[in-house]
């Protein structure tokens, strides 16, 4: 059974290598997405199986969060880097897409300015800032969605990994990074719409964002992005490269002594993860209809980590599941129990860390995952250590 832990890469068909959970995930996500699209587009609103529009954008949002959670799981679950600033990459991707959507509004804004978004008109800006150029082109935008978070991750990771900032120190300064970005984006002078951010988007590729067809397309794209993200992550962690990053997670110094350039591996995983987060953000913006600096708040980034923990760290599918579950709970309870939901949410986080340290996926059959969960939870595999080592983990 434990042999299943490291399926022999390359010798078996790809889908089999994913293991049962992975297979179900890869099949189920697109199927559910197709069913929902069909339920939305084909069935009349009177049908009890009709999927209403608000469910469509809700599920679309969950899928974006799932992809975001997976990106965090890739670095935290497999490389041991706990980023408390991943919301920043997500938000940057979202902003890039938001800028494209703003440019698409054209002269349909309230001041009817063909070139400048409304918030620039009201700030008395006469011309488009240089960094807004090019975003009228979708291909350029999509490139930026990946490049901007990737570049930030590269710069930030290059410095921090090279100077061997690890563990909690990394977490805290990544939090400082997103906090600084939040403050920066709050400034109206930055030219990103300040506190209000960007909203009132009209259309994408000429299609109305409020149409059912567009919603379906975005939902389906999110599902595809999620599956693609999953396959990419699995590809990375199943390869030899994946073994090295696992080694880094479990014994960084030892790996370094064995001759691996630890910082290069970390940097690459970090950049890939940031790009995934950026893609998730880009899909998120048109579906929720607003992007603003509150996406940068450190609390958001902490919450992403919690989704991963709830679903099961180091399992990828679990991270996605955790994101969907926690957010579904949030949507549900903020409506059903508006006064009490924070107690439930807070209690859930405590309960998960105390009683289900392997997350939801750990409760439902550990064999299912096709991945040894013990590797996902380093704390459990090692004896309890003296406190002094705790912060240097």
């Amino acid at each position: 059974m434990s042999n299943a832990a490291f399926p022999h890469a390359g010798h078996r068909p790809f889908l089999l290598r994913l293991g049962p959970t992975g297979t179900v995930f890869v099949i189920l996500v697109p199927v559910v997405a197709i069913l929902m699209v069909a339920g939305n587009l084909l069935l009349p609103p009177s049908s009890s199986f009709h999927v209403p529009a608000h469910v469509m954008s809700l599920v679309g949002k969950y899928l974006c969060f799932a992809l975001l959670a997976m990106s965090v799981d890739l670095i935290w679950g497999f490389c041991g880097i706990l980023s408390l600033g991943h919301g920043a990459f997500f938000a940057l991707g979202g902003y890039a897409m938001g800028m494209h959507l703003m440019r698409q509004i054209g002269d349909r804004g309230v001041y009817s300015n063909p070139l400048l978004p409304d918030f620039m008109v009201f700030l008395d800006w006469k011309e488009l800032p240089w960094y807004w150029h090019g975003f009228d082109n979708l291909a350029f935008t999509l490139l930026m969605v990946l490049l901007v978070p990737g570049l930030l991750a590269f710069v930030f990771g290059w410095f921090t990994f090279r100077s061997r900032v690890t563990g909690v120190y990394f977490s805290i300064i990544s939090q400082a990074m997103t906090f600084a970005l939040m403050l920066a984006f709050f400034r109206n002078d930055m030219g990103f719409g300040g506190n209000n951010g960007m909203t009132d988007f009209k259309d994408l590729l000429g299609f109305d964002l409020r149409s059912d067809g567009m919603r379906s397309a975005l939902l389906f794209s999110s599902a595809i992005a999620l599956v693609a993200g999953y396959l990419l992550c699995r590809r990375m962690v199943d390869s030899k490269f994946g073994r090295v990053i696992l080694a880094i997670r479990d014994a960084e110094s030892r790996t370094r002594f064995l001759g691996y350039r630890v910082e290069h591996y970390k940097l690459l995983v970090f950049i890939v993860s940031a790009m995934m987060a950026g893609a998730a953000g880009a899909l998120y913006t048109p579906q929720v209809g607003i992007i603003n600096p509150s996406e940068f708040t450190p609390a958001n980034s902490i919450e992403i980590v919690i989704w991963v923990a709830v679903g099961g760290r180091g399992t990828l599918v679990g991270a996605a599941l955790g994101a969907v579950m926690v957010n579904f709970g949030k949507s549900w309870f903020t409506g059903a129990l508006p006064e009490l939901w924070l107690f439930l949410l807070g209690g859930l986080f405590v309960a998960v860390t105390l009683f289900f340290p392997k997350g939801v996926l750990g409760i439902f059959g550990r064999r299912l995952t096709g991945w040894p969960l013990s590797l996902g939870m380093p704390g459990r595999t090692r004896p309890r250590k003296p406190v002094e080592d705790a912060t240097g983990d």
Partner: protein
Amino acid sequence: MIQICQRAIRLLLLLAAILAAGPFSANGARAGAFEDALPVLTGKGFAAVGEAVDALAASGDPRAIPVLEALSDGDLYYRESDKAVFLARKGGEGYLLTDPGTGEAAGTGARGDFQKIKTNNRLRVKIRTALGALGLFSPDPQVRIAAARSLFMDPDPALLPLVDDALSKDDDPGAREALDLARAAILIKAGEASTPADKVAAIRILSQSTSQGARALLGGILLDDGEGSEEVRQAAGKALQQIETRLSRLAFVENVFQGISLGSVLLLAAIGLAITFGVMGVINMAHGEMVMLGAYATYLVQETFRLHAPEALGWSLPIALPFAFLVAGAVGIAMERGVIRFLYGRPLETLLATWGISLVLQQLVRTIFGPTNREVSSPDWMSGTIEVTSGLLFTTNRLWIIAFALIVLFALMAVLRYTAFGLQMRAVTQNRRMANAMGIRSGWVDAFTFGLGSGIAGIAGVALSQIDNVSPNLGQSYIIDSFLVVVFGGVGNLWGTLVGAMSLGIVNKLLEPYSGAVLGKILVLIAVIMFIQKRPKGLFALKGRAVEN
């Protein structure tokens, strides 16, 4: 023009009345003027009240002083039934009344029967001038100084003879200095009425003063196109320059002080975390909520005082300190025993659990106390400013907070160093197994250490309640800064926390005038991120093995 004349005539009358009465005596006040003026107060509108203020001032009657002060403070009421005026203070269900004529208590009155006599800012200025005039001859030099200062703030040319008279009789050096300044201010404001030579002399006196008020007066001369004398303009320009040089030097000192004060706030917020996170390795995201609990404990103590012993409200803060410590400490111990002790060795998971706890605590406080801010008042000994030198003002509450932060820090160091508990704590953090073997119950040491860190956070809450909102969100605004301070200073080192907090505070404040508040903060954050690259373990890293893990 007519208005000015009227005003001058009124003030001359006032002057005549006061001069006739002679200083230090009420006997000569025009008989009945005070009594006549009181009913005017009950007239409708601000104009009527203004007339009454003039009349009261003109009465020259010392009994007018408390009446005017009460009017300015909003403590003057009249009875609706017979329009009798009273000084009133809220007490119990109704008002505690004082008769303005006799100055004696006049029983109590029900709230519904009385109307407050309203004032606005314009009237307050008028009252201040009137009080200044009335107080110039008080037997108490402090009152005379205050009176002269208020004349300096609102110089009225018609009062010049009065000030001259006061100057000729006063021999208190403090009062004379204040009177000189007031006289100079009046001369400058007098326009055509004073000669250029007078003005230049006045400017010379003002140029010695380092105050915003003097600078405003001098600036006023330069702005005034009516000021024809080139000599005066030049003198004013020169004096202004002198004052500005001194002020800008002081501004720097003040800026550093503000930096230290911000640093001490950061220090207070971070000390508790330096224990729970720095020493124990728990990424305690609920730390901010401990601060918040401390602030709410302060609120509870103050409410109790307000209900049962309003006269001793000034003592509420010292009493809140141990209470806040115990409340936050108890919650901390409960957290440690209930949750955190199962998570040692998994620091990143303590982050998740404590984050959950922080959500629960916030919502709990919101449910119990409501989402709105709670009022925590500042005791008298913490309000106001202290004038260090002329023109350099330090706010008292900031000074207290700086002192308090340092006291807490050094007390904590002493506890760690000189007490048995401190010894056990250090033993457990340095080598748990050995400590266990020596008979230390490490579990309980853990619990009390966490309780100590939380309790100190609670104490910080008492101090922060003085400068910030007491609301369920209080803790959230300090948590990121606290972590940055601890990490920047070096985990596990209290000196590092001190230096870290102070340097962040001072740098932030020195940047702020140039970059603005937001950009300054961003720059500081970037600087910290860059600094951590250079010294990954902070300013004062604990000496450890060469290789991590």
